[in-house]
């Protein structure tokens, strides 16, 4: 393939091929991202295959697709009959497959109880008008899927489908008609900023690496996504891996790197698999390798798997890990753009940053800069999790408020409980209370408010979450992940954690809060890398907004949220009717009682999981 026109011819050919299949066959797409599989997609697939065989259907094609981001509705199954609208079904169980096959696949009637939405298409004969339009349902209305545009729509294992939807046109345009300087200018003009959390202007970063002179340069994709609660990058890599490959190739050309690495955490085996397949397919098709598009530019992409170290998401530690060493950060300068991997100029960007690149090159920087706010252009993908009704991925234009994301898209708090706080920025970030919900999602507004964008994880907490426990939870995490190299982080986080552990166990002392604040300031100022410098943030944020909870734990030995197990216990009151449900459900057999008699909890066995209280039909169990 030598020119953009060659690629466009290939694209037309693949579109035609897909159209022919769509005109003759019923397509069934099953969401087989990690979330879908965790919800039981494989069993649904098996049921589907069996049902199709049982009905002797020869005109059905089953395809796998990635995460569309509607995790709460998994398992998601889409059905498209020839010349008809695509309908998405949610919460599909193996037992639902029969009715889907008989009613929709064979009968052409939508199964309304399971239907989530339909994709309206002007070119179809039948639209299933009584199923709501997918893009108009509450979860989707305020979203704009650009980075996620192909996730859950195409088959990630098919380079043909990627090309059919316009894939690799960005790379072709860049290599056949632009200079590296022009590419960097376009990225600068677009206003794209790093999506890993730092928010550094991408074009400027590429300029630094471009300016360095060396016999070898490297470009790295940070796919470590270690923030607990974040899975945006996983979904992009599983659902649209070629998007990342294309973005990296364009970046490599811009900075002058002929070798690229994707450093991806080993906890994402499906993403690793899809990326490997994508790289092989891209090599075979000529989008990677030597002399791509006859431009003289060669680019080889390799995968390096992480081995379970959060600190390796920090760029200098990441490079150490690629070199086969312990992932321990080092001071900067020298910055990676000057001296990075194996001492050579290196540019590191996050998955989502690369996922924005190709479309900026195709649609132009002006188009991109037309979205978002003055300082933050484009869209951001957020992972909505925790005590929220609709968990999943939400891609919104910068400038959307947090309230809109949590309440309009996320549907508000699960079980109609009360919102308490949302953790933004993972273990490096902080929690935001109700009063901050109208903050606009953009880098600068969040920093001004004392928070940060982070990688995009939003963990929602309700009235039953203890904020002291949240701080303790994050410190436990960062303490375990601390590499140990610098004293402030290694010793400091340990001491902070000891204090927090004492507090949640009811052994807090006067002066503990002040000591925590003192330690926090010292660690922030003196730790070697971002992990240590930001480790105290969750403590400082919870102290800022929820100091009263700390004081209640310390002065009154009480947990206002009723969550800290050392300070609460479950009690079966005399409302108990002896139905025995709690006894049967208790996972550790801690409840005793005869039929129709008062039941009692054995506190030596009780693990305080709350199952008994959650399921008691007479609300006879309380937490004290």
């Amino acid at each position, binding site marked *: 393939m030598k020119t953009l026109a060659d690629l466009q011819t290939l694209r037309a050919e693949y579109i035609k091929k897909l159209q022919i299949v769509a005109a003759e066959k019923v397509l069934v797409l099953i969401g087989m991202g990690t979330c879908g*599989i965790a919800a039981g997609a494989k069993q649904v697939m098996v049921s589907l295959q069996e049902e199709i065989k049982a009905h002797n259907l020869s005109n059905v094609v089953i395809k796998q697709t990635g995460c569309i981001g509607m995790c709460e509705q998994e398992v998601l199954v889409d059905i498209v009959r020839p010349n008809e609208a695509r309908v998405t079904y949610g919460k599909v169980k193996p037992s639902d497959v029969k009715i889907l096959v008989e009613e929709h696949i064979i009968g052409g009637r939508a199964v309304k109880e399971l239907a989530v939405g339909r994709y309206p298409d002007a070119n179809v004969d039948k639209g299933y008008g009584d199923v709501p339009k997918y893009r108009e349902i509450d979860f989707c209305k305020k979203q704009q899927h650009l980075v996620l545009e192909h996730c859950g729509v195409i088959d990630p294992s098919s380079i043909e489908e990627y090309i059919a939807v316009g894939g690799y046109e960005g790379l072709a345009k860049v290599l056949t008609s632009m200079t590296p300087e022009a590419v960097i200018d376009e990225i600068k003009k677009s206003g794209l900023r790093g999506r890993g959390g730092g928010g550094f202007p991408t074009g400027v970063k590429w300029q630094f690496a471009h300016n360095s002179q060396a016999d070898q340069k490297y470009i790295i994709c940070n796919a470590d996504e270690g923030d*607990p609660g974040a*899975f945006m990058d996983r979904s992009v890599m599983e659902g649209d891996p070629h998007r990342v490959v294309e973005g990296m190739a364009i970046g490599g050309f811009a900075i002058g790197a002929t070798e690229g690495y994707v450093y991806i955490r080993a*906890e994402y085996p499906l993403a690793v698999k899809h990326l490997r397949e994508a790289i092989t397919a891209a090599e075979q098709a000529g989008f990677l390798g030597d002399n791509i598009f006859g431009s003289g530019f060669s680019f080889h992409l390799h995968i390096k798997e992480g081995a379970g170290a959060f600190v390796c998401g920090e760029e200098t530690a990441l490079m150490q890990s690629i070199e086969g060493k312990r992932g321990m950060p080092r001071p900067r300068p020298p910055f990676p753009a000057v001296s990075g991997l194996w001492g050579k100029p290196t540019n590191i960007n996050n998955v989502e940053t690369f996922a924005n690149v190709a479309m900026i090159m195709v649609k132009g920087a002006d188009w991109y800069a037309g979205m978002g706010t003055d300082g933050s252009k484009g869209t951001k993908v957020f992972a909505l999790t925790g005590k929220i009704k609709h968990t999943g991925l939400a891609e919104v234009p910068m400038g959307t408020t947090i309230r809109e994301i949590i309440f309009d898209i996320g549907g508000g708090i699960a079980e109609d409980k009360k919102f308490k706080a949302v953790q933004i920025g993972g273990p490096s970030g902080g929690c935001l209370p109700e009063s901050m919900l109208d903050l606009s999602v953009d880098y600068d507004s969040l920093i001004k408010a004392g928070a940060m964008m982070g990688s995009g994880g939003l963990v929602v907490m309700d009235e039953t979450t203890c904020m002291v426990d949240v701080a303790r939870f994050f410190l436990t995490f960062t303490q375990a*992940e601390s590499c140990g190299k610098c004293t402030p982080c290694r010793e400091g986080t340990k001491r902070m954690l000891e204090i927090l552990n004492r507090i949640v166990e009811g052994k807090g002392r006067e002066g503990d809060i002040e000591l925590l604040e003192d330690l926090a300031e010292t660690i922030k100022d003196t730790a070697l890398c971002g992990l240590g410098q930001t480790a105290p943030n969750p403590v400082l944020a919870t102290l800022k907004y929820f100091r009263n909870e700390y004081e209640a734990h310390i002065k009154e030995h009480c947990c206002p949220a009723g969550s800290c197990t050392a300070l609460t216990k479950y009690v079966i009151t005399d409302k108990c009717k002896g139905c025995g449900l709690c006894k049967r459900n208790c*996972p*550790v057999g801690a409840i005793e009682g005869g039929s129709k008699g008062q039941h009692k909890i054995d506190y030596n066995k009780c693990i305080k999981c709350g*199952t008994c209280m959650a399921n008691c039909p007479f609300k006879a169990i309380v937490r004290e």
Partner: protein
Amino acid sequence: MPAEIDYQQVDKILAKYANDKGTLIPIMQEVQNLYNYLPKAVLEYLSQKTEIPLSEIYGVATFYSLFHLNPRGKYIIRCCQGTACHVRGGAGILAALEKHLGIKAGETTADGRFTLETVACLGACGLAPVMQVNEDTHGRMTPTKVPTILAGYK
């Protein structure tokens, strides 16, 4: 019980990476896939063959949480303790697992069937709380589901 080492397999892995740079971690990952852990004898062999000091190899093995120096069970249970899982009851799942198996996180059952581990985040947060058994990911976990799910792994 320590594994029986097949050095030919180890040599194959070494040959695969012979022409690349920075290959220690992928080599160790592939060796661990063979035995479910990193036997000391193999680490010594790797040191000999790669000329990387054993102390450095040991340093790498103990730095990364996915490397294990002791034999593990047939089924590895990874109970997610990430933020989303924690907020949705992850601690209760871990407690139920520990009680049901009679071991603590990091340990293996006496019959060698299950090893219980915690993991910081599996990235399936939309279905929290989550637990993995070998390659199977189980979402929307509750403490009561633990015995039934584990019974399926013979």
